């Protein structure tokens, strides 16, 4: 079983992204679980969600405290994310334009904000960073690009889906460490 814990801010689409990842896992013949953590629900407040992916039925429902991947939608969430729980072998995935060194952990990064802005995936001045990050995470957990993009096209049929899928593909190809 693979476990991801995602930290972001309310309004960044963290829960939606976790659901898209779960769908992509399901489409790949795996079992998945998203476990959103509900606290104070406000735009801009820190939020988190867990995602578990497995090739066997999942009967674990507890909060994620030792994720295989700690996903941070902003560098500013690094300390908070690490304080919630991490294990020595956890990898970190950052939304950042360049890599940030974290002692003892392998760090992947993708410039989700930059990709969303460069490709016009912005509404009311807010970039949809969850879409490029979704693409990057799909690659990380071994989802084929075609499957990843089809999930988006099915979720938002038509032009919207095409545009989002194209940006997800850029995210898919941009993950570095």
């Amino acid at each position, binding site marked *: 079983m693979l476990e991801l814990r995602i930290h972001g801010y309310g309004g960044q689409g963290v829960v939606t992204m976790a659901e898209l990842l779960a769908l992509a896992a*399901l489409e790949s013949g795996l079992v998945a679980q998203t476990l959103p953590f509900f606290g104070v629900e406000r735009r801009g407040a820190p939020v988190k969600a867990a995602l578990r992916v497995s090739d066997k039925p999942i009967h674990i429902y*507890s909060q994620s405290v030792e994720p295989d991947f700690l996903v941070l939608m902003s560098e500013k969430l690094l300390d908070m994310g690490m304080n919630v729980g991490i294990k020595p072998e956890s990898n970190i995935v950052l939304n950042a334009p360049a890599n940030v060194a974290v002692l003892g952990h392998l760090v992947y990064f993708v410039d989700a904000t930059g990709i969303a802005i460069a490709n016009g995936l912005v509404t009311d001045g807010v970039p949809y960073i969850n879409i490029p990050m979704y693409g990057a995470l799909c690659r990380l957990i071994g989802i084929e690009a075609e499957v990843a993009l089809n999930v988006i096209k099915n979720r938002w049929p038509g032009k919207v889906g095409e545009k989002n899928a194209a940006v997800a593909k850029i995210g898919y190809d941009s993950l570095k460490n």
Partner: protein
Amino acid sequence: MGTVLDTGCHAVAMAVCNAKVDVVAAYPITPQTSIVEAIAEMVEKGTMATRFLPVEGEHSAMAACTAASAGGARVFTATSSQGLLYMHEVLHMAAGGRLPVVMANVNRAVFPPWSIYVDHQDSLAQRDTGWLQFYCASLQEIYDTILQAFKIAETVSLPVMVNLDGFILSHASMPFFVQEQEVVDKFLPPFEPSWVLDTTNPNSFGNVTDQSVYHLYRKMLQEAILASLPVIKNVAKEYKDLTGFWHGDTFEPYKTDDAEVLVLSMGSMAAEVKSSIDMLRKEGHKVGALRLRLFRPFPADDLAVYVAGKKQLIVLDRNHAFGNEGGILFNEVKAALFGKNNEIKLANKIMGIGGMDLNWQTMAAEIRALLED
């Protein structure tokens, strides 16, 4: 339909849609969950040919449900925590009136202080209202149990409460299988009530009784609840034969056969505790787990069979039996086993109150501390 990825709340709504419910009455605001939101949306879209009654409180919701049920309708409602407590008076009406209302309750802690997270105090506080009670441990089980609940309720003329852990099961998204409508129709034909309230043929219902009659009705209620056990088992088996899905009827055992110690619990913690059992077995402890699926009627005879020859039974409670030692499940177990198996040693731990996270490592540590070697 096939396999979908959705939340526990939506699993309830999809089952209610498949059950072709006539009336849903519900209070739509907090502590309500997205169950009735999803149902209202389907009614609005025309996917469900159901009369949706948004009422001003849970007390009214259950009142509307009992009235609609007495009128011969297939009825559903959903609630959670304070909403269920507010219904309490009318819960007696549904059970005493022998009305087959089905309700989903999302288990959440009760006030005060405020908490929105899971424990089992809300539904266990309704223990003596006469409702049958199920506790689920997966999204698939939620969907399947709602369908079974209608069949059981209408067969034995008793209301059924299906419980699911707040946030853990209600808001988690996981894949579950939704049956084709024809399959559900075969399992659950339209409700044919043995009597209905009918304005063209007026009858009195729930009238004033004197002492010589009242106690007979209460006795009949108790007998009907106890007699529902074989029906519940048959319905679970029939559902399995038709769909292949099986979650146990009264209990779901896990590695119990060669175990010396059994760990009993309910809800999602009873799913995760399987990993605790695996861990403790690797350490050499002969342990197994029992998940109680049916709390009312309490399957005392089945429990006696499972624990026969075992050394110890550890009960994990996600509630308090205020004013008595231990949790409510623990007290139920003591009552059930007294006179049947007085050799077995019992232990109890109250945990996971108000959403305190219960992971399998923590539960394994608690179980290890309670083991009597």
